[in-house]
């Protein structure tokens, strides 16, 4: 039970940590000053959220590890985020498409997590949901703006959606920890979010005059710790400070 809960929390937190790191990469590199600040803001929202999760995970683990140890000192195979969030910022269309495809899931997920029997998780979900509602608004607007924009912007957004589509199905795969926590009334049954997810995503893609990909081939592995080639590079940057100056604190 304790082990399952711990793994379950990591499953939630790692998604936001890795996505937050990707968004943070835009700090100083955003397409415009205003968008740069917006993306960095979203990154900080996500980091704030994961602190609550990792603090809770550290408490559950009870083996002396801190939130920082859990967030920063695991090896690649020990991270259980979905493949979608680790995909690189190929261009701004990719960055927004990745965020959008995660946001829609994230909002549905937190809406259910609010009902968790675990009071801490329910409280974290309640706190995070307002931020995530804004994230979804922000990324959806960019899907519409670029999708229903110029020929160039539409081509790029369509390419991003087509490429990232293959990572969406994994969001709805259940891990062992998921199953254990669903049976305890603590976890969210992600398989039940799938229909609402594609309905919402497809609606916005249609509004954006984009084509809904028809591909039925989906990638998976992140939830089991098997990542794409991008993950190692991401982690080496994320973990640089803790690896170089062990135990450093802000």
């Amino acid at each position, binding site marked *: 039970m304790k082990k399952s809960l711990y793994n379950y929390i990591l499953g939630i937190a790692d998604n936001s940590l890795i996505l937050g790191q990707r968004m943070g990469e835009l700090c100083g590199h955003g*397409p*415009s*000053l*205003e*968008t740069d*600040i*917006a993306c960095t*803001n979203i990154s900080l929202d996500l980091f704030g959220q994961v602190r609550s999760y990792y603090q809770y995970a550290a408490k559950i683990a009870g083996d002396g590890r801190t939130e920082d140890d859990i967030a920063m000192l695991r090896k690649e195979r020990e991270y259980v985020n979905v493949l979608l969030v680790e995909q690189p910022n190929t261009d701004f269309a990719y960055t927004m498409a990745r965020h959008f495809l995660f946001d829609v899931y994230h909002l549905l997920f937190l809406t259910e997590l609010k009902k968790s029997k675990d009071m801490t998780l329910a409280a974290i979900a309640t706190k995070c949901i307002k931020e995530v509602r*804004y994230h979804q*608004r*922000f990324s959806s*607007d960019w899907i519409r*703006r670029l999708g229903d924009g110029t020929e160039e912007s539409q081509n790029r957004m369509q390419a991003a959606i087509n490429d990232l589509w293959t990572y969406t199905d994994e969001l709805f795969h259940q891990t062992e920890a998921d199953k254990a926590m669903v049976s305890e009334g603590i976890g969210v049954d992600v398989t039940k979010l799938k229909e609402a997810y594609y309905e919402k995503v497809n609606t916005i893609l249609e509004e954006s005059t984009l084509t809904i990909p028809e591909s039925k081939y989906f990638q998976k592995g992140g939830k089991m710790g098997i990542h794409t080639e991008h993950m190692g590079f991401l982690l080496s940057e994320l973990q640089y400070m803790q690896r170089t100056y062990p135990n450093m604190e802000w």
Partner: protein
Amino acid sequence: MSTKQWPLWEVFVRSKNGLEHRHFGSLHAADADMALENARDVYTRRNEGVSIWVVESKNITASNPEHNGEMFEPAKDKVYRHPTFYELPDEVKYM
């Protein structure tokens, strides 16, 4: 980065209910929705506001600094337009 700039917008923020919207600054955005979202992220991320107005800068008609003489100088020597010649009782505070 594109060489073509997005239009400029002026941002007005109401800090608290009951106060007026005040000019906070300006930013670039492609449309009004984006201007509102950018304003939220640029100017209110430290909890500075409860309401935001954005207006495209081109819609503001401003006085010309070259005309400051005729616009504002004549008011300078009309001190009697300030109600400073009255004795105020101490009980009246905050005038």
